[in-house]
């Protein structure tokens, strides 16, 4: 057994850590988040140049290998720095689906552009009625000669505002919640009938609601077989879930570290508040949460890689446990910071917001506990 990163993975982690330390301090991040795109195109180019965008892909797709474990060093450091650039929705999720389901032609056309930072993608899956059930797709794709017509409404599409192409999950057959009948389509956001409402999420990440009204899509834009997309969707969402778990583990470590720093310097009744034993034991419990979370992350990552990327119970166990840890560590970090912890001015408050979002992204703690049970 070996839980250490390989040399390549360690170099990757170091490279992301250097970027975060040098270019992504709290004030720089604020400027990025408050900018037009909700992320920095310049940073994105850096990601491409440093090869990070190749991490999620297999070598034959122009990537670095594409193991689940490879995502960990990148996402953890992103979590510590609260990086908002759309690595997860664009490269891991939408890019991953393209690599998983796309034809050679489709891949050849789009993957190089993605990896070189020239193409923004997003995956539009969730819908207002469906919460976290990936099979609850009501968006319809009806045949129209050698085209399809798409109609539906997609909720809170991560990177949906900046994306040039969308991967859309739509129903070519069956009813809401049927596992069969779901297909994937590449949709240009400039197509007639696509409406977007862009916004920033509470955690600073960009997103959009997207409406499709009689959007005409060529058959060649379908990714993979008609009606058979759900297993691939589940596989890629599980992979993205692992990635967001890694981000959470990084963010929790950072929240604990900042809390330790703060309580060591902040004084009350003439003593640093870190000297109060009741608070000490709570920080010990935060530490335990961080460590148990990290263990679950490693468990799920190794299970995914050992099982060809399909390990739903392992992923759900990890998401459930890490969600609980994210809640506890985030809330305690804010509480132990006192008043300043609930202001927009402090980094720990933004870690808390992101740790809240990750509890719900790709399924809440409750959802994943139930999925683990069944």
């Amino acid at each position: 057994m070996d839980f250490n990163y390989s040399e390549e993975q360690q170099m990757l982690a170091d490279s992301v850590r250097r970027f975060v330390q040098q270019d992504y301090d709290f004030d720089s991040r604020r400027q990025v988040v408050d900018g037009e795109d909700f992320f920095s195109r310049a940073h994105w180019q850096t990601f491409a140049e440093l090869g990070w965008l190749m991490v999620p892909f297999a070598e034959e797709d122009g990537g670095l290998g594409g193991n689940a474990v490879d995502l960990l060093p990148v996402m953890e450091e992103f979590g510590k720095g609260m990086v908002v650039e759309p690595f997860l929705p664009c490269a891991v999720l939408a890019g991953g689906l393209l690599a998983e389901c796309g034809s050679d032609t489709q891949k050849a056309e789009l993957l190089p552009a993605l990896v070189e930072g020239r193409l923004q993608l997003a995956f539009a899956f969730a819908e207002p009625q469906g919460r976290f059930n990936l099979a609850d797709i009501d968006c319809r794709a009806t045949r129209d000669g050698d085209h399809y017509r798409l109609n539906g409404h997609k909720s809170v599409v991560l990177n949906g505002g900046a994306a040039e192409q969308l991967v859309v999950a739509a129903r070519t057959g069956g009813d809401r919640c049927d596992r069969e009948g779901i297909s994937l389509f590449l949709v240009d956001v400039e197509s007639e009938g696509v409406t977007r409402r862009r916004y920033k999420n509470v955690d600073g990440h960009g997103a959009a609601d997207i409406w499709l009204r009689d959007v005409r899509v060529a058959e060649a834009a379908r990714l993979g077989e008609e009606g058979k997309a759900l297993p691939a969707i589940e596989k890629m969402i599980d992979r993205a879930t692992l990635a967001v778990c890694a981000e959470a583990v990084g963010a929790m470590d950072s929240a604990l570290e900042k809390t330790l720093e703060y309580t060591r310097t902040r004084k009350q009744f003439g003593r640093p508040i870190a000297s109060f034993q009741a608070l000490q034991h709570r920080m010990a419990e935060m530490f335990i949460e961080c460590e148990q979370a990290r263990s679950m992350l490693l468990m799920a990552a190794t299970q995914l890689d050992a099982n060809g990327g399909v390990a739903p119970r392992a992923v759900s166990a990890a998401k459930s446990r890490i969600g609980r840890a994210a809640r506890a560590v985030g809330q305690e970090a804010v509480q132990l910071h006192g008043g300043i912890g609930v202001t927009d001015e402090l980094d720990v408050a933004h870690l808390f917001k992101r740790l809240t979002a990750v509890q719900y992204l790709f399924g809440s703690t409750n959802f994943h506990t139930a999925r683990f049970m069944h």
Partner: protein
Amino acid sequence: METSFNEGELAFRDQVRAFLHDALPADIQRKTLRGLHLEKEDYVRWQKILYRQGWAAVNWPVEYGGTGWNATQKAIWADECARAGAPEVLPFGMKMVAPVIYSYGSEEQKQRFLPDILASNVWWCQGYSEPNAGSDLASLKTTAVRDGDHYIVNGTKTWTTLAQFADWIFCLVRTGGPEVKNQQAISFLLVDMKSPGITVSPIHTLDGYPEVNEVHFNNVRVPVENRIGEEGRGWTYAKVLLTHERTGIARVPQTRRRLEAARELAAETGDGGPTLLENPAFAQKLAETEIELLALEYTELRTLAAVSTGQAPGPESSILKIKGTEVAQQVDELHVEIAGYYGMPFVPEQFSDGFDGEHIGPGDAAASWLRYFNNRKASIYGGSNEIQKNIICKAVLGLGG
């Protein structure tokens, strides 16, 4: 042992209901029920309606304009207001400075300040906390140095809620030098916010709203006649007040309304097939929260019953603060869970006056995340829950420091 209402109490409840039904403006009600920000004008408009009814100051002595209601009537009033969606009374004038003025102020101070508070002509804010004092009020640094018949005030107050609207601020300031024992060096001062030398800088809380502020005092001249009671006894006045303030802090009616709202929303929220209310884990959490709220309600009733038989609410009332905030935060999390993905969009402007675009997501899903973020303050402000546990240890359990 008797806990049901008698006939007189039932009649009173009907009277309250009828009044709220007729008098509460629909736009204010809508904002309250949906958990949206109220503007200054909203608060003042509603308070003036209460003033005209004679119900503005529920807790004041009758001689200064109070209602003279007993504890049961006050509980009925609070409950009905919460059910109806009436805004809460902002506490700073009505519940915080006024009792200090009518308990410890001079006759002249009472006549000068109380009528304007009662009529909501003047907006007050509170100047207790300081950037490095937190829950440790005795270590205040803001100084008030005597200069003839004025004090010269210097320092910074923080976490001053809605100071951007305030006409006056009440402050704890240090009037004694370093040779004076900490708690005897502090005085209670009323300061006109228009005084030269005062600047207000907003602090944005987690929901993006500048709910609290820093208030800076730079050589601000305050007439000595604005000091309440004796010099050096300000901490005593403030402390008595803090204990009295404990009843009502359980916020049972408000939390119950939000709990019921969560149940209704969950019944309408699909969960990829069945509703969220049919989700066993969610339903269990909802039930446990409801049970905890019921326990809290009766803990508060027991405290009120003790008050009504002449016992002052003791340090046991720290439970009301701890459990009151914990249960409210649990309910916040139920709403967060209901909102799901639609809690994530951060578009606070859609919850403000004058927004005429389409909301994102169903109902006010996104508002519930903002509220969850904002309400993390509840267990920190007003004596953090850790401080409340210290109080229980010392004053109730007899455990030394």
